[in-house]
């Protein structure tokens, strides 16, 4: 499908790159379909472009290059909602916030995607994790 995105311009989205977030994101309950588009060429950063609102996009990162100790543990209800049979099917992305002086990642509320069904969910982890963890290459 062709989308006209504020951030990406006109891009053709392969159906296999469409992710469904049935519950939306926290604070964005009605935004349920996203395209996942590479940002950069090393598979670290992604655009999460809303297909419901062409003006809405997020930048996300795979957390482990920056936070190798990060071990999100999913609750039973999250595993059920994602229908995750095999943890290997889970893709984890953290949303980025870019401010004037920092780029930070939300480690408390990561996005977890079942890569097989392409269904995703923003989960809320237990534990004392930051919503603004500065990205620092280690």
């Amino acid at each position: 499908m062709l989308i006209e995105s504020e951030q990406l311009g006109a891009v053709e989205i392969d159906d296999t790159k469409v992710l469904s977030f049935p519950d939306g994101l926290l604070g964005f309950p009605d935004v349920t379909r996203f395209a996942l588009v590479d940002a950069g060429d090393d598979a670290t950063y992604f655009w999460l472009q809303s297909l419901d609102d062409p003006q809405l996009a997020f930048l996300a990162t795979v957390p482990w290059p920056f936070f190798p100790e990060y071990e999100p543990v999913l609750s039973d209800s999250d595993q059920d909602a994602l229908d995750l049979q095999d943890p290997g099917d889970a893709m984890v992305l953290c949303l980025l916030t870019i401010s004037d002086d920092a780029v930070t990642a939300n480690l408390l509320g990561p996005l977890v995607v079942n890569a097989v069904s392409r269904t995703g969910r923003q989960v809320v982890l237990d534990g004392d994790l930051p919503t603004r963890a500065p990205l620092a290459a280690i």
Partner: protein
Amino acid sequence: MLVLSRRTNESIVIGGEIVVTVLEIKGDQVRLGIRAPRHVTVHREEIHAEIQRENRSAAVVGDVDLGRLPKPSAGA
């Protein structure tokens, strides 16, 4: 809002399947035990609010210089 008074070890039942029990009261702090089915998520309200706020901050507005994003170190 429904307001109920409960003592330690007393519970309330919500929707027939969620049980909230007062475990301990110490000063202005109350410890609650919550028994809920697997499909019900239970979180502290302020955590939810914090993630909502952060999501709003994360929504990309305007141009972004992707060159500002740090590069992960090689081999990571």
